[in-house]
């Protein structure tokens, strides 16, 4: 059941209506049933994997809690906790490895052996990649780590914990939530809140806009070119690569946005997964803005435990490479993803090595680092570097990625751009729709960057209750009410700006947006790209 399917559009209102009709005590159980149903719609038997991961990490949490409270000495406690974490990690990563990487590993091993002159015929392993496995396993493991680090108490209610792992809005494609954030909210079932529901629904609408109007349209052209890359040259490859950058951004962000909106309707707040990544002024900055839930996971549970930047420059660079290698591998069992990850690691290392020189250059030229032209230049350079890496991400094989780069350099003998662009799968009307969609995205991004409109704030009370409010309200009331967490959501800038308009303008915009969505509904019915991860 995809977010962009009619099934979901039927499932979600039913789920929400019954959720709010039920007494608070059983609302979370209902959500758990809905979440499991949602997952089983794809393939019922793989629910056991989700359950297995849930039980393993739940038990590891409880065991660690028991160890912490036991009379054992600290050394024994640490040793036992290490063992528990190791068991949790090995079993979860084991599941992930088997279902996601086993064939890749066998194939790679066979190739290596063949290079060494040894021919082996390994048995074929017939597995289907369970949808969302990388997401929920990483989410469950983050819980194990948080309990291990004493950052949270182990959850005693297994059903609540099961809901944390399987919460349907973010189950199959993130954001990879943290126990400190979501589990805490689940302690108190969501209440009907007019503003939350309204804001959640509008956020979902924006998510659908990104997916259907922009991402799926880009996909037509990108698929045309990248599925037959040897037949396209010059600007055709360049346009397809730029559109892929936009496609993957809008596709993934749309999922996160719909997830966020759906969760908000239910009274929960998910973390931000994107913060204008193509406005990044460096690769490091890009990774602070792109797939934030994964990059922060890798930072907190891999890069920092490896030593981060605390053990000298060489170790830091090795740690960066390892982290990005894992990031690439997480995305898919293919060398194209590994190269993509490594390329980003190399970018960061080069950036770090060049930093003293660029700083010196800036000082010498007395150029203001906040200079608009310089910022735009940095944004463009960063985008080009990111887009070059995306070629590996999108290409069907390393050979095709190489062909894409080679063909992109061939500029002669091509049809004029005006004609050629219409022969890549998008006709004039669809180009206009895409252009309009991108213009709206750009305006909304600029508004968000400049924090135009009232910035929505998510307030999580000490008891886990979530509400949204204007920042003015929050600042004036935080001190008095004992609210302990305030998250400013910049993402709602456009939604909030629209909400503040006169109702005729407001509805004209809603309808415009909806009409564009309607005119995009039968384009391809594409899956979300990140479902495959």
């Amino acid at each position, binding site marked *: 059941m995809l977010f962009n399917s009619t099934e979901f559009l039927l499932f979600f209102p039913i789920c929400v209506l019954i959720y709010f009709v039920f007494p608070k005590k059983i609302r979370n159980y209902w959500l758990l049933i809905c979440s499991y149903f949602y997952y089983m719609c794809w393939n019922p038997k793989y629910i056991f994997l989700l359950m297995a991961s849930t039980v393993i990490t739940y038990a590891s949490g409880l065991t660690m809690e028991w160890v912490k409270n036991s009379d054992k000495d600290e050394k024994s406690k640490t040793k036992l906790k290490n063992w528990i974490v190791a068991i949790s990690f090995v079993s979860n990563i084991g599941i992930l490895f088997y279902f996601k990487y086993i064939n890749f590993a066998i194939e790679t091993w066979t190739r290596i052996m063949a290079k060494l002159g040894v021919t082996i015929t390994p048995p074929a392993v017939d597995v289907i990649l369970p949808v969302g496995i990388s997401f929920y396993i990483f989410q469950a493991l983050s819980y194990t780590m948080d309990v291990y680090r004493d950052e949270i108490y182990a959850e005693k209610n297994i059903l609540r914990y099961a809901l944390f792992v399987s919460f349907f809005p973010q189950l199959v494609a993130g954001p990879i939530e943290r126990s400190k954030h979501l589990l805490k909210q689940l302690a108190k079932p969501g209440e009907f809140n007019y503003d939350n529901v309204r804001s959640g629904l509008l956020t979902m609408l924006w998510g659908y806009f990104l997916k259907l109007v922009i991402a799926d349209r880009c996909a037509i052209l990108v698929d045309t070119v990248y599925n037959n890359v040897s037949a396209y040259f010059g600007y055709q490859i360049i346009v397809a690569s730029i559109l892929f950058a936009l496609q993957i951004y809008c596709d993934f962000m749309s999922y996160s946005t719909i997830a966020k909106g759906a969760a908000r309707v239910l009274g929960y707040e998910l973390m931000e997964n994107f913060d204008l990544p193509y406005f990044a002024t460096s690769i490091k900055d890009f990774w602070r803005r792109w797939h934030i839930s994964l990059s922060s996971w890798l930072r907190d549970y891999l890069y920092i435990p490896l030593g981060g930047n605390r053990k000298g420059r060489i170790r830091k660079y090795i740690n960066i490479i390892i982290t990005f290698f894992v990031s690439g591998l997480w995305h898919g069992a293919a060398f194209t993803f590994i190269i993509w990850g490594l390329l980003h690691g190399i970018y960061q290392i080069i950036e770090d090595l060049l930093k003293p020189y660029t700083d010196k250059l800036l000082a010498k030229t007395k150029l203001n680092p906040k200079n608009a032209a310089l910022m735009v230049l940095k944004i463009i350079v960063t985008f080009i570097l990111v887009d070059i890496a995306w070629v590996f991400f999108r290409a069907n094989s390393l050979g095709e990625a190489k062909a894409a780069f080679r063909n992109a350099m061939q500029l002669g003998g091509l049809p004029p751009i005006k004609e050629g662009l219409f022969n890549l799968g998008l006709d004039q009307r669809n180009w206009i729709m895409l252009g309009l969609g991108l213009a709206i995205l750009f305006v909304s991004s600029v508004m968000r960057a400049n924090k135009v409109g009232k910035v929505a704030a998510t307030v999580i009370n000490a008891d886990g209750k979530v509400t949204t409010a204007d920042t003015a309200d929050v600042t004036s009331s935080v001190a008095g009410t004992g609210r302990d967490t305030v998250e400013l959501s910049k993402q709602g800038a456009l939604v909030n700006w629209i909400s503040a308009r006169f109702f005729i303008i407001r509805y004209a915009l809603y309808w415009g947006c909806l009409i564009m969505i309607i005119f995009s*509904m039968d*384009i391809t019915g594409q899956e979300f790209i990140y479902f495959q991860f």
Partner: protein
Amino acid sequence: MRDIFFKVIKLGVKCVLVMLPVAAFPLYCQKCMLSFCGPDYVGPYWNKEFTQMPHEKYYSTLIIGDSTANAAYLPEVLSDSVVNLGLAGSSTVEGYYTLEDYLANNKAPKDIFVSYMDYHLEEDEFTWDVCNFVHKLSKEQNAEIYKMVDKYGAAPVEELTSPDFDWDVLMYSVYSPTIYSSSVLNSIGSGRRADNKASYQDVDTRLGRYSSITNREYDPENVMGYSKFKVGKLEHEYYKKILKLCKKKKIDVHLVKLPLSTDAGFIDNYEAEVQDYYNDLLEDYDNADFYWFHTTYEHEFFCDQYHMNNHGAFRFSRELKEQYPDIFEDNQDKSLQRMAALDLDIAGENYMGELTKRIDDKPYTLIILDGTGNLQDLYYMYAGVNGRDVQWLDLEDNEKYAIYYVSANGEKFSEDITVDATGKDGVVVGIGADLVQLENTKKTGISFAVVDNITKKIVCARQCLYGERGFIDLLDSTGENL
């Protein structure tokens, strides 16, 4: 609690308001199909509308079949109560439901003619998506199709119809944007509405004919050998359903195998297989017969390998009429509807000989302006074949040209027709509000106008060039090639 209740109501109202375009879209699709659908859907849409509504006029003969049948049968030539319900791309599956729909809303005809090209009988390919797009198939009919395809189809239902049959049927039935939005988007600013309305009017006037309406001639590259005749299980079952339904409704069925072009060659046991199949099929049906037009037509009667062009359709329809004189005995009637269809046929002609054949002895008047003095040639070559005399229109002396008329059905010159010869270089022919200028084409040939005495319209105006071989080329009234 009360506060929450009002907020829920407020939210509901806002949701409804925001979602108005979602509700408006299916409504638009339902009411304005011709404003957005592609040109290929106009014919099926007309077919759906025609079969799903009752008609005051009684049609004694229906034509059921695929595009070859739709192209070949000219209702206006056959009789005044024939309608062509052939559907491009269809097989016996759609044919059955076309008949079922028509009979559900109208009095049963006396006869139906059924013609399908071999490939539509052999392969399980039909127009399920097109029929659902125009809402031709009901929910029950779709359910029956599912069962039949599941039982008799050569491939799974998903392959022959849709990967998600029930869901898609539902989506079609509610005019879901997932199905219709591309068509609507593509129609914006494309002028489809006007084109489709004109096409629809054209299909309506031609009594259901919309395939291969052209005078283009087929240029074969090699011989097409027919060696095997096979009817798929699904098509066979629907053939039987058609026969059963007709038996129940006491309709005579005529299964007609259409003529092919001369590049077709029947080899091996093909002919015997065809005969054997139809003998078996019709064994239990006394009300049905099979007729095979073994005659092959020259290439100029086809626009491609299988489809007859206008000339082929005209020839075939006349031969069919001769073959079944009892069925088409009412062909003397010349209703407005039939004349309008004939008008279109005449207006589309680019050969003088074909044009006069269509005029035949029907209530048309030809007004001829001859500046060459060679009208006799034209008379003997073409107009004379109808056995009608060319009459001189005694208007006023004119040295440049002479004006004649021919009354195709021999009736006297209609008082409704006006001919104004006071102009310098030609005459103005009129009937009612319809006027046309015939120019004096002294150097090249003659000009003439065809006037329909029933619909009171000028059907066309032409110039006929005079060359070494007499009158040959037909041009439009301004001298442009047709």
